[in-house]
Structures are given as C-alpha cells and as structure tokens.
C-alpha cells in the first residue's frame, strides 16, 4: 500500500487524525499549566523555570518533534478529509442544513483554520524568536519569554484577539473530544455519556483557563 496519506482509506485517515488530535489535546493541558504561572506574583521566576525546562530538557526536545508532527498530521489530514468531503457533493442543495446535528461539528474546518492562523502568529511571537528567525521586541533577550508574554498581553488589541480565539478553540474542542473517541470506535453504553461530559467540560475549562490571563491584563491591570 502506498504510504501517501491520500491513498489511505477514509477510516484510517480519520483514525490518525483523531489520534493526533487527542495528542494535541493532552499537550494543551501542559501548555495551560505553564501559562497559568504567568499569573503568579513572583516576577516570572517560576514561569521562566518552567520555560527553561521545556526548552532544554532532552526528553521534551524529543516530544517537541512529536508535537510538531502531531500538528502537521492533524492539519494536513484535516484538510485532505475536508477537500474529499467537498468533492463528494459537487451539486449542492438549494435548501440545506436543516438536519438536526451537533452545531459545532459543522464548522470544524473553519474553527480549525482560525486556530491555525493564531498558531502562526503565536509561532511568530515566540518560537521563531527563540530560533532567531524573528527579532525579539526591542530591549528584550530572545529567551525572555516572560517579558515577551507580558508585553503582548499589555496590548489591548492582542488580548482581545486572544480572548476571541479562545472562544473558537472552545468550539473546536467541543466537538473534537467526543468525536475522536467515536472515530476510534470507542463507543460504549456505559462510558460514552462520561466521555461526552468530559469533552464538554474540557472544552469549557481549558480555553477559560487560557482566557484568564488576557482577561486579567484587560480588566484587572
């Protein structure tokens, strides 16, 4: 069988897409944990320790490869699947979209695209700076993520964009979590209600956690 993703069966593609998605979901928790350290009143000491660990630990370095791989796979397969789906209905209905469906499931490619744009901005602000591809803001070291983050969040515009993005992230996650389990075939009369509940809870709590930080800078500072 060809190793080209295009030639994988629809279900194989979706299973890989789901696994990559679940991996990104776990990563999001780690990211949130570190971000929340920004709210501590210690001048960024603990935050920088965590960032230092994440940028130098060899095990994390290996995980970083998986992480980027996970993003790439999730994005590329997501687009391939979507393009096939558009092609499967060349002539559209005049009246459509009235069937009862889970609302957010219909907009995964759109919410995904918005998250992707933000991801690029995010890379530009941090990761590329670390790599030396992009110059750090004036007066800052290229490793000084704490000051960079503070600088970004003190911009009203950025904070508002960030808050809006979290809303879209929530929409994406809301369908993603339980959908991934369904794709993996993990549907069970006893556990599925719990998975659905956990997915909804996750999609609210995690983006809310991220949103705390810009909200703090917007309203409390």
């Amino acid at each position, binding site marked *: 069988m060809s190793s080209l993703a295009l030639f994988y*069966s*629809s*279900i*194989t*593609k*979706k*299973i890989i897409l789901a696994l990559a998605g679940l991996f990104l979901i776990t990563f999001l928790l780690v990211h949130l944990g570190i971000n929340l350290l920004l709210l501590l009143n210690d001048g960024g000491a603990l935050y920088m320790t965590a960032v230092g660990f994440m940028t130098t630990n060899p095990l994390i370095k290996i995980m970083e490869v998986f992480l980027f791989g996970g993003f790439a796979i999730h994005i590329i397969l997501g687009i391939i*699947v979507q393009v*096939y*789906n558009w*092609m*499967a*209905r*060349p*002539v*559209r*209905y*005049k*009246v*459509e*979209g*009235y*069937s*009862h*469906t*889970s609302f957010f*499931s*219909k907009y*995964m490619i759109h919410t995904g695209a918005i998250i992707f744009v933000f991801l690029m901005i995010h890379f530009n602000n941090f990761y590329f700076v670390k790599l030396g591809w992009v110059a750090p803001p004036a007066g800052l070291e290229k490793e000084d993520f704490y000051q960079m983050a503070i600088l970004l969040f003190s911009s009203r515009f950025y904070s508002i964009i960030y808050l809006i993005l979290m809303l879209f992230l929530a929409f994406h996650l809301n*369908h993603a979590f*339980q*959908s991934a389990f*369904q*794709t*993996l*075939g*993990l*549907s069970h009369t006893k556990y*599925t209600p719990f998975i659905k509940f956990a997915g909804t809870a996750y999609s609210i709590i995690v983006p809310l956690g991220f949103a705390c930080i810009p909200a703090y800078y917007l309203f409390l500072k």
Partner: protein
Amino acid sequence: MNFTLKIWRQKNAKAKGKFVTYKLNDISSNCSFLEMLDILNEQLVLKGDEPVAFDHDCREGICGTCSLYINGHPHGPDTAVTTCQLHMRKFRDGDTIVVEPWRAKPFPVIKDLIVNRNAFDQIIQAGGFISVNTGGIPDANAILIPKEDADYSMDAAACIGCGACVAACKNASAMLFVAAKVSHLALLPQGKAEASDRVQAMVRKMDELGFGNCTNTGACEAECPKQISITNIARMNREFLGAKVGSQKKRVSSGGGF
C-alpha cells in the same frame, strides 16, 4: 390544502436541470406526499406536460426505493418515516415545498428526482453478505446467540438502503449505511467468520465510489427513517481498525469465500 411546489426537473443524466414551480390546490391533508405528486403528475399529463419522475415502490416504508430531499430534509420534515409514509398534514396550508433529488457524487441524477443508487449495490457486492454453501437447514438452536446481540443486529438490519444518510450528511458520507450492513452481520456468529475481510472490502469500495468522510455530525442518524444509530459507525471503525491491525497476511492458495 394549497401548496407551491418547487421541483427539480432534469431531462436526463446529461441535461442541465432547473427548479420549476407548480401550484397545487385542494389537496387533502390525509394525502401522502407521493399521492400529492401523483395528483400533480395527473394534472401535468392532462396538460400534455412531462410528469415528474420520482422513485417509489412499496409505498409503506419497507423497500427503501422512495427518496426526495424535501425542504432541507431527506424524506421530509417528519421523523423516522420514509417519503412514502409522509403526509401532507405535516405541512401548513400555503407552504412552499422545495423538492430536490439526493445530492452526492456517487448518486448521479438519472431524471428529475430519480438518482442512481447503484453505488450501494456495489458496496453490498463487495462484502455485505455471508458465504453460505448449500446444505440442510441447521437446527435453530445449534448456534447460541445472546438476545442482546440479536436485538442490536436486528436494529442495524432495519436499514432499507434508501440513502437518506448520504443525502443528509454534509459530507455525503455513506458511513451509516455501510456501518449498518457491517454491524448486522458482525454481531452474529454466522457473520463473524468473514467479518475482517468484509469490513475492509466494503470500506474500500465505499471510498472508491467517492463518498465523503464521516465527521460525526450525527445528521444521518437524525434523518434515518429506520433510526439506525451512529454507534454502528463506531462499531465499524472498531471492526476496521481491528481488521487492519490484527489480520494476517493473505494466504495465496486459499479457495472459496472472499
């Protein structure tokens, strides 16, 4: 009751189709949707016009021949019924009703509201059966089947292959249909023997025909006249993953069966 109908008219597979508006008056609320179309067609014939072509056979919700995408719903606004079981009392007097054929690349329009659903036959031919050689009738109790399994199997077997799932899905995915066909066999001991080959062959055929990928929106389950559940899709994913990962390399010389 009076209605304004906007119906998709297309001479043949090649022709460019368009919506044509018809006014229909004095329709009984007890009329079925297909009877309403019959009345329209009688009037068209009397006027010397070409009647609207639509699929139908049993007219009691068991054969899966009728179709029609009515006001944004396959089989119309009612739940758990086919178009032939839909009644005009489900609409309001004076309503405008838009009637379209199923829209999916593997279901090309043949004429007006009739589409070619041969793609489903091809999927069944790929593996939606059990290879039973002839012989005596086995004793009914020789193979024990748990009641639960039999019930779940029967639920899946209720699929009449009408294609409403494909029509409803925003991705024109046939996963609910294929999942139902995979499930009703995979749940029973007689079907288990070939389960691994079956699921792979049927999915391969489904992809080849150009159906979309399921994104778990649940529209199919909501519109299915037989209320087939998407837990069948999860079962098929499970079967497929197990078959792909767990199956051995094929023996070259094996005869019979698949």
